[in-house]
C-alpha cells in the first residue's frame, strides 16, 4: 500500500493541549457525588443525606490536583461518608478506621460500606485478610477476637489511637459485582448476594448477603443459622433493598411530575403562541441567561455572515419557505454583506498586526484565513482561553466592556465582534422584514451561515 497523501494538511495540537484536557477533567472531578449514577449511586447519595459529615470525624487527607483526596485517613465518630480518589466512596460506621492511598485501603477497625466504580483493582487490606475488587458494592466488617465489633471506642477516638482494636475476623458482604477475599494463600470469590468470612483459619463462604443465595457449598462454609453476623448482614441487605425500593419509587414519582410539568409548560407556550406549536430555540439565539450558562463553561458561540459573496444570496425557495417575497432577497444580501464587512473591519487590522504590518498579504489572505492566523498568533502571546471566558462574561453582562478595547487582546476582540453579529444582522433586518421574519431568518436554516464555537472550559479554580 502506498503512503497516504501527507500533503493534506492536518492541524497540530497546541503544546499545552494536554494540560487543558486535564484541567477540564479536574474541573469535572470537583463534583464527584453529583455524578453518582445508577441505583447504588443513588443509594450512596441517599445514605449521605443522613450522614453527619465531619461529625467528630478525624480526617487527614492529601489532595493531588482536584477532586477527592487520593490519599488520606479517617476515623469515624458517627456515620461518615468519605470519597477516596476518583472512583470509590466509603460509608464508615461509628468506630471505623480506614487509611487509603490510591486504590489501596487499609481498614483496621469497624464496619465500612464501599461503592467502587469499575476500573483497575481496588484492594481493602485488613488484619484478617484482603479483599480485591474491580468495581462493585460491598461491605467489610471487622470483628474482634471475642466476637465483638472491632471498632474504636470513644477513648480511642479521643486519643486518636489508630490500630487499638485488633480484628480477628472480617465479614465481607457483596451487593453488586464480585470480589476476591484472600488470606495467606487461600482465596474465595464472592458474587452479589454472598457473604464470606476470613480469619486465622482461612477464608470461608457463608450465606447470601441479600438472602438471594443459600449457604456456599464450597469449603468449610458457615451456615447462616450458625453465625449471628450473617443474620446481621442479611438485615443490612434488607435495609439496602428497602432504601433502593424507596429511591426507585421516588424516582418514578419524580419522572411523572417532570412529565406533567413539561406538558403544562408546552400548553402554556402553545397558548402564548396563539395556538401554534412553539418553535425550538436555535442554539445561536442567545439571551443574557443563555450567555451566563455559556460563561460558566468558558464558551463562546457565534453565527455570522460568511466571507464569500455568493453566500450572501438567499434562494427564492428559501424566501418562500420563510414566507417572504422575492424582493426581500436584496435587504438580506445587504445585511449579510455588511456583516461580513464589519467582521473584516475588525479582523483586518488584527491580521496586519499578526503579519508584522503587511497589509497587502492580509488582503490577499482574506477574512477566513486571517481569522485562523489571528488565532494562531494570539495563542503565542495571549491567554486565549481567558479571553474567551471574558468575552462570554461580557456578553452575559457579568463583566463590563473594557473602556480600552485593546484590553480584550487580539483574539478576544475578534471573538467579541463575531459573537455579536447575529443580533446585529437581526436588528438590521428588522427594519426591512419586520421583527418576526428577521428572527426566523437569522435563527433558522434557510440562510448560508458561518457558525463557530470556541471553548476554553471553566476558569481553573485557585487552590484554597
Amino acid at each position, binding site marked *: 500500500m502506498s503512503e497516504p497523501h501527507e500533503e493534506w494538511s492536518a492541524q497540530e495540537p497546541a503544546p499545552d493541549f494536554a494540560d487543558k484536557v486535564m484541567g477540564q477533567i479536574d474541573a469535572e472531578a470537583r463534583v464527584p457525588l453529583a455524578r453518582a449514577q445508577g441505583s447504588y449511586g443513588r443509594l450512596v447519595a441517599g445514605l449521605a443525606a443522613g450522614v453527619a459529615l465531619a461529625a467528630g470525624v478525624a480526617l487527614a487527607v492529601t489532595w493531588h490536583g482536584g477532586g477527592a483526596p487520593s490519599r488520606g485517613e479517617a476515623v469515624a465518630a458517627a456515620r461518615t461518608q468519605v470519597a477516596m480518589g476518583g472512583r470509590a466512596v466509603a460509608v464508615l460506621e461509628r468506630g471505623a478506621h480506614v487509611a487509603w492511598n490510591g486504590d489501596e485501603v487499609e481498614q483496621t477497625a469497624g464496619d465500612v460500606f464501599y461503592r467502587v466504580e469499575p*476500573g483497575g483493582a481496588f484492594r481493602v487490606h485488613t488484619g484478617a485478610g484482603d479483599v480485591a475488587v474491580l468495581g462493585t458494592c460491598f461491605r467489610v466488617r471487622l470483628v474482634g477476637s471475642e466476637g465483638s465489633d472491632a471498632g474504636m471506642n470513644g477513648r480511642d477516638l479521643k486519643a486518636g489511637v489508630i490500630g487499638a482494636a485488633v480484628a480477628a475476623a472480617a465479614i465481607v458482604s457483596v451487593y453488586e459485582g464480585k470480589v476476591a477475599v484472600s488470606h495467606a494463600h487461600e482465596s474465595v470469590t464472592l458474587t452479589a448476594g454472598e457473604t464470606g468470612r476470613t480469619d486465622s483459619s482461612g477464608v470461608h463462604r457463608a450465606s447470601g448477603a441479600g438472602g438471594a443465595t443459600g449457604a456456599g457449598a464450597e469449603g468449610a462454609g458457615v451456615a447462616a443459622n450458625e453465625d449471628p453476623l450473617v443474620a446481621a448482614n442479611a438485615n443490612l441487605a434488607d435495609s439496602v433493598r428497602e432504601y433502593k425500593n424507596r429511591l426507585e419509587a421516588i424516582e418514578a414519582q419524580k419522572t411523572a411530575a417532570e412529565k406533567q410539568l413539561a406538558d403544562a409548560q408546552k400548553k402554556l407556550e402553545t397558548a402564548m403562541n396563539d395556538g401554534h406549536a412553539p418553535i425550538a430555540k436555535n442554539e445561536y439565539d442567545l439571551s443574557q441567561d443563555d450567555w451566563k450558562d455559556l460563561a460558566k463553561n468558558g464558551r463562546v458561540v457565534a453565527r455570522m455572515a460568511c466571507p464569500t459573496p455568493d453566500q450572501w444570496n438567499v434562494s427564492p425557495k428559501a424566501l418562500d419557505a420563510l414566507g417572504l417575497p422575492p424582493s426581500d432577497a436584496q435587504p438580506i444580501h445587504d445585511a449579510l454583506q455588511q456583516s461580513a464587512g464589519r467582521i473584516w473591519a475588525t479582523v483586518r487590522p488584527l491580521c496586519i498586526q499578526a503579519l508584522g504590518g503587511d497589509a497587502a498579504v492580509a488582503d490577499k489572505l482574506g477574512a477566513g484565513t486571517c481569522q485562523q492566523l489571528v488565532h494562531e498568533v494570539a495563542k503565542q502571546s495571549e491567554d486565549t482561553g481567558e479571553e474567551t471566558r471574558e468575552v462570554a462574561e461580557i456578553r452575559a453582562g457579568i463583566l463590563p466592556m473594557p473602556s480600552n478595547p485593546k484590553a480584550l487582546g487580539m483574539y478576544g476582540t475578534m471573538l467579541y465582534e463575531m459573537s455579536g453579529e447575529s443580533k446585529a444582522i437581526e436588528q438590521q433586518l428588522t427594519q426591512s422584514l419586520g421583527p418576526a421574519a428577521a428572527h426566523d431568518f437569522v435563527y433558522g436554516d434557510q440562510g448560508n451561515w458561518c457558525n463557530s464555537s470556541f471553548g476554553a472550559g471553566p476558569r481553573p479554580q485557585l487552590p484554597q
Partner: protein
Amino acid sequence: MAIAMKGPEGERAPAGGPPAELDRATLLRCKAHDRQAFRAFVVRYERPVFACLSRMLGRGPHVEDLAQEVFLRAYRAMPTFDLDGAAKPSTWLLTIATRAALDARKRRVIPIRPLEDASHVAHGSTPETERAQRELGRAIDRASEALPDEQRAALVLAEYHGFSIAEIAVAMGIPEATAKTRTFRARERMRALLGDEWRAR
C-alpha cells in the same frame, strides 16, 4: 509502577497512519482514572485526533474544542474500554472522534473556513517541491470539501488512520456494505477531482 514515557510529555504519535499504541500498564492505569497515565494517553493520541478532526471538519479553533470533548468522553468511558477486545485504543478513540465530528456537522457547528495555506513540508525539500506540495495540499482540501460528510469521514479513516472497512462501519455506526460503498465513492470522487494527483491505491 512506572509509566512508559518519553520525557515528561510522553511520546507523541504521528498525525497520519496508525500510531504505536500506548503500553498496557499505562492503559490499565488510565482505566483506573490515574491522572498521570491519562495525561500520557492524551499526549500519545492528541496528534491523530487533531488530524482526524481537522481533515473531517477543516482547520480552526473548533478542532481544539472538539478534541477536548473527545478526550473528556474517552476519560469518562475509559473504565469500560476492553483492553483485550478487538479494538485498539487508537481505533476506539478515533471512533469517538469520528462520531463527535459527524455530530458537530449535523448540529452545524462548522468551521468558518478551512485554513488554506498550511501544508506539511518535508525536511530537505526544495522551494519547487515545497510549492508543489502546498498546491497539492490546497487541491486536496478543496476536493475533500466537495465530498459529503460521511464520505469524507470514511476516506479520512481509511487513508490516514488505517481503519479497515469493518472498523469504519463500527466507527460510523453503519453496515459494512455502506462503509465500503462510501469509502469507494470517496476515493473515486477524489480521483475524478484530482486526476493523477490522487494516487491509485
